[in-house]
């Protein structure tokens, strides 16, 4: 029997006590690993969200939100100043309009419903046919009355003119063209992409034609987004819609891409200085910052968790070994008295401490691997539940009031929320190495304390108390 054998044997000489120490240590190691995994996953997701959100800025006329509100469209001069702003690498301009039955021969595929009908009540009154009951202006009848007849509200079809059809995508990526080909947003051709729902409703296919604003438009392709509102609309080149609606140069939304995420804040400031109160400017980076705020909170929490769990683990081992040495002072004194060197006694206690640590670490790491996934998911799900709920409560067929210009930006926003809930626990080699490193540090600390204590024990002092 040598030092190592004795150390291992001593570690399990009291199974109940050693088992309790091992269990407590294992739990702290499992917590360390879980917290490291959660921290790694969250930090990685924060980077991903920031990278995804990164560099887009949306500029809309002041007072406009999703087709509602008022104000004037952005002008050609304003678009030019946006495009020429430093650090802006590209822009996508959009104009949205609603086509009623007078504007197109298409049948809207969206059911109006009570919500849609309510949106049209003011429009209906403004366009109502007013029939004077008494038309003789010279009449002396002072109780002249008017009979107002409101036509029944009718569903409308949203048409978006854009320089880039992909800006309508709800996922933030490319628009999915289920048949045909996409359109050239920079052209002024009388072509359109038709949403899958609208195409089905009107039996449209690639090459079909329909009438819009008195002109014949050819279907270039059918797109699908999975969003009922978007799939009930039409996408045209921006110039085409501007011409058809007599709004030359008018734009209701510009999505600008900045060349670097570092320049987003400065570019937003520059645009605000240029456009003043005429436009509302928002950046995805700002939205992302608020979206990842909760994740950053979790990252800080997990960092604190790692430190606390490591401290608890170290304390468990140090105190346990301290108590072990204290209750075995006589035994240590006897071993020294019969010729055991300090080295042999210290070695024995180091092996004893390491045995407990290693057993606890192995159990803890296995436990940590098992619980880190659910723990990370739980932390992130709880944290992002508020934003998820907000997204979930939006009804089908409605987006920002009557839909329209905010669609592209909200697509990216939806992507951010999806990212938040898709944080998955990932145990990388670096995280595992960090956990093992912390464990070894604790093991060394836990062994060094008893080693220092045993070296201080003088056999004569121990045996004198007989």
């Amino acid at each position: 029997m040598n030092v190592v054998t004795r150390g291992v044997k001593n570690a399990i000489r009291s199974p109940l006590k050693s088992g309790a120490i091992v269990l407590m240590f294992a739990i702290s190691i499992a917590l360390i690993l879980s917290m490291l995994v959660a921290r790694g996953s969250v930090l990685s997701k924060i980077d991903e969200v920031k990278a995804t959100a990164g560099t887009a800025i949306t500029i809309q006329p002041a007072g406009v939100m999703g087709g509602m509100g008022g104000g004037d469209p952005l002008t050609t001069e304003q678009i030019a100043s946006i495009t020429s702003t430093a650090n802006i690498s590209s822009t996508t301009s959009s104009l949205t309009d609603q086509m009623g039955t007078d504007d197109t021969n298409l049948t809207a595929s969206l059911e109006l419903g009570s919500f849609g009908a309510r949106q049209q009540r003011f429009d209906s009154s403004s366009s109502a046919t007013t029939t004077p009951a008494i038309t003789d202006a010279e009449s002396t009848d002072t109780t002249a009355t008017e009979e107002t007849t409101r036509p029944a509200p009718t569903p409308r079809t949203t048409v978006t003119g854009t320089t880039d059809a992909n800006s309508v995508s709800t996922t933030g990526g490319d628009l999915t063209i289920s048949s045909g080909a996409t359109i050239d947003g920079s052209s002024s051709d009388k072509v359109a992409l038709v949403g899958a729902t609208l195409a089905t409703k009107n039996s449209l296919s690639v090459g079909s034609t329909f009438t819009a604003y008195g002109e014949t438009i050819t279907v270039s392709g059918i797109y699908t987004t999975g969003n009922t509102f978007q799939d009930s609309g039409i996408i045209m080149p921006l110039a085409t819609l501007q011409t058809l609606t007599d709004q030359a140069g008018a734009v209701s939304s510009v999505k600008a891409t900045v060349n670097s995420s570092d320049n987003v804040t400065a570019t937003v400031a520059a645009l605000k200085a240029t456009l003043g109160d005429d436009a509302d400017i928002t950046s995805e980076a700002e939205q992302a910052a608020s979206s990842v705020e909760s994740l950053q909170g979790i990252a800080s929490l997990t960092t604190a968790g790692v430190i606390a769990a490591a401290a608890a683990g170290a304390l468990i081992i140090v105190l346990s070994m301290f108590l072990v040495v204290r209750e075995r002072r006589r035994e240590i004194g006897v071993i020294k008295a019969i010729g055991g060197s300090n080295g042999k006694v210290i070695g024995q206690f180091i092996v004893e401490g390491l045995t407990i640590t290693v057993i606890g670490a192995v159990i803890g790491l296995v436990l940590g691997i098992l619980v880190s996934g659910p723990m990370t998911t739980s932390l992130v799900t709880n944290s992002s539940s508020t934003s998820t709920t907000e997204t979930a409560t939006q009804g089908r067929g409605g987006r920002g009031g009557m839909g329209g210009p905010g669609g592209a930006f909200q697509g990216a926003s939806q992507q951010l929320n999806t990212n938040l809930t898709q944080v998955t626990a990932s145990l990388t080699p670096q995280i595992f190495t960090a956990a093992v490193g912390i464990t070894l540090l604790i093991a060394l600390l836990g062994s060094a304390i008893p080693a220092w204590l045993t070296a201080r024990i003088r056999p004569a002092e121990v045996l004198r108390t007989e």
Partner: protein
Amino acid sequence: MLTIENVSKTFNTPGGQVQALKDVSLSVKTGEFVSIIGKSGSGKSTLLSILGALDNPSTGSIIVDETQINKLSGAKQTQYRAKKIGFVFQQYNLVPNLTALENVMLALEFGGYPASSRLDRATQLLTSVGLEDDQQHRRPTRLSGGQQQRVSIARALANQPAYILADEPTGNLDSATGKKIFDLLHDLSRSQQTTIIVVTHDLEIAGKTDKTFTLKDGKITTK
């Protein structure tokens, strides 16, 4: 030959300095069976600790086979204890989670005995002190006081030490068992020329040794 010259030992206690040994001098020849008697607190155990290099004297010198052991380094004193000294304690002081055999093998390991022959040597020693085969594989808690003291003696003899220092070896045993243990030590001193120094307050035991030193208030009063 073991010689103690003008040894004094002072302890610092919360109540002030306590002088446990005062200018003690004595010598013991090789192979002698010596007893040290005295009342509780007279300095017997302190003297034994100094002889076994468990403690150093405040003043004076201890010369063992021409080596002044109190001037040795800590590591050399450990070697001295491992190879030249065998301790027998009143409380036996066996390592509780080791079997009788393993306790003896532990001393053999510290004495540098080859690992391959430790088991044979330990078995032989335990058999020679009268421990049955099945008892040799028991832990101390499953042995009687007398059996534990036999294991303690076997452990003390493991490295064939020149000196055995026994502190009240029969103090915890009944008279019959105590007599057997004493006879065992006595036989050893005769058969193996081992110098045995026994601290005891049992005058009957002291009367059977070759030489008796009496300690009173830290001073040798009778040689």
